[in-house]
């Protein structure tokens, strides 16, 4: 078990920079998720840490040891890959045992350790099975056991569940969280699935275009996006152009001039100065549809004229207008079906959590292209 420190890491493919001067520290014993869209450099970053790729610049420390130029097999790591990687010419037992032998475990300890690890991933009794005799999920569990068995400094998970079907994914992700709790091994999970990252990680690194956009606890990442990318990548957000009007100790007032509306936001989420142009981000999931007499429970209330309401299983998507501004609202709960009847009517909405993101010309263009699509 160890912490990981990365300084100014640069990895190029030909002339393209896949990782652009990333510096980050990963706490010992944490379960950190590297989240981002495909091609954002998250897998490249993980492969640099694994030693499967060598960075052009920067340094990587694992447990305060500089491993930047160390070959993969000389770093004490465990890794689980996206594609099935259980050796098909070895049984489950041999897969795990070979890893122990490679790390010079005492011979007598190996059988005990293998069965301990297979028990950890719920595969007791399947020692003799080969790849063909195991399901996709079981084979991936063997790989997890194999990676963890030698007690590595660091466990690297490179989209470990993306080859599995949805139901199995939900099951295994919670198991990974359990295993992490039991072993307490520093774990890095690369994923493009925000659900996975937010569910189990205690720290999320949000990556985009070779950079770390935002780092924080899942709740913080979800509630307080700091950049336009963070706000658009996770969940569905509504963006309204505003200007900081007043700054108080307990709240910030933002005026959306075009609509003649003033919104209140929590000042602790970021530092803003008077008169700054900002985007008011309102998460579609955070907006509640309320009865008019409930308005005192919310910092912001506003009326929305409903244009369309559609059912998508778990929640109802309401598309409506706050004055001229189109809004999208996701409504859950047992009374959501009533909204299907409200098309053409006006409903009252309440929202407490508003995030603020700096606004300028480039982000103007980005948001308008986003709203057009």
């Amino acid at each position, binding site marked *: 078990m160890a912490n990981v420190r990365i300084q100014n890491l640069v990895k190029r493919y030909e002339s393209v920079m896949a990782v652009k001067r990333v510096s980050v520290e990963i706490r010992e014993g944490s379960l950190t998720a590297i989240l981002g869209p495909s091609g954002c450099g998250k897998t490249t970053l993980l492969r640099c840490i694994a030693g*499967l790729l060598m960075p052009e610049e920067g340094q990587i420390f694992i447990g305060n040891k500089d491993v930047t130029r160390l070959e993969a097999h000389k770093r004490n*790591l465990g890794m689980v890959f996206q*594609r099935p*990687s259980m050796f098909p010419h070895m049984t489950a037992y041999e897969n795990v045992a070979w*890893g122990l032998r490679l*790390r010079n475990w005492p011979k007598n300890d190996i059988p005990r350790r293998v069965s301990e690890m297979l028990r950890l991933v719920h595969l007791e009794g399947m020692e003799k099975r*080969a790849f063909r005799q195991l399901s996709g999920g079981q084979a991936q569990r063997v790989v997890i056991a194999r990676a963890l068995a*030698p007690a590595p400094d660091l466990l690297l998970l490179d989209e470990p569940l993306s080859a599995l079907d949805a139901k199995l994914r939900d099951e295994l992700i919670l198991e990974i969280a359990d295993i992490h709790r039991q072993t307490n091994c520093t774990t890095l999970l690369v994923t493009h699935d925000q659900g996975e990252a937010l569910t189990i990680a205690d720290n999320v690194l949000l990556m985009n275009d070779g950079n770390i956009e935002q780092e924080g606890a899942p709740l913080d990442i979800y509630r307080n996006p700091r950049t336009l990318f963070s706000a658009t990548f996770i969940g569905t957000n509504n963006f309204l152009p505003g200007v900081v009007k007043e700054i108080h100790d307990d709240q910030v007032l933002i005026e959306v001039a075009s609509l003649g509306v003033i919104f209140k936001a929590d000042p602790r989420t970021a530092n803003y100065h008077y008169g700054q142009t900002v985007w008011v981000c309102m998460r579609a999931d955070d907006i509640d549809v309320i009865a008019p007499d409930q308005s005192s429970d919310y910092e912001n209330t506003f009326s929305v004229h409903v244009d369309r309401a559609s059912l998508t299983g778990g929640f109802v998507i309401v598309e409506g207008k706050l004055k001229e501004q189109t809004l999208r609202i996701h409504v859950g709960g047992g009374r959501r079906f009533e909204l299907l009847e409200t098309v053409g009517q006006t409903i009252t909405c309440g929202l407490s959590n508003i995030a603020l993101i700096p606004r300028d010309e480039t982000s103007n263009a980005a948001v308008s292209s986003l709203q057009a699509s």
Partner: protein
Amino acid sequence: MRLPRWLFITLNIYALMLAVIMIWPFLQILVTSVTSDVTFPPHNFSILAWSNVLWPDYFKSMLVSLRMGLFATIIVIAMCLPAAYAIERRRFPGRSALGALIFVPAIFPTITYGIAIGVYLALYAIQWQGAFPLVVLATATWTIPLVVRVIQGSVATTDVVYEEAALVMGASPVNTFFRVTLPLIAPGVITAGAIAFTSAATNFTVPWLMGSTEQPVAIFIYQDVGKLGFTPQTAVEVLVMQLIVLGIVQFLFLVFRKQFRGAFA
């Protein structure tokens, strides 16, 4: 697409007919070997031809052929296995040119190559003319393109993730190759080895042109045909060699497949 029934049957008969044409010569020598002359339909059955073959000389030639096949296979696999792996897994300048270069022997006429070596030895190294090690080396050359291609195909269908997993688990690159890559590409390597073995063991042109001092079976039979013509006795000689070569190939597949099938079952 769905073919009309008559067309399907016609094509099926046509394919079977071609197969029979390919197999026919072997049935023919099988029958001829137990008759006293080459006639059809066969009559005058006799096993005299079997006793006329000079078996000690024949088996001496047979051993030469098998040694040629064995040594050529070892040499060519030892060279082509790493090369095929590198061509498939690594990216380097001139990679496609190298692929074309390795392909050259496949399209190169054996005769000119044999003449090239034969002339060189006759002019400048008469003491090496027909030396067995040189014959083996030259014979091996002709199997390179097929061997590289078969192994390369095998490497291409093996996911690189197994090798990466082994590296992260702590296996050195060499260890990874022998413990992970090689077992996974074994079927391809065995196939390549079988092809190399048979084509080297049955090669006529290269040992003939190099004036090999040791006589492989192909030359033995050619000279017998020159003396006797295509008779039942030469049919016996062809048949025995063919059976042994095919038998060895079959044996290789059986023995090795069993070991590796356990892993894939």
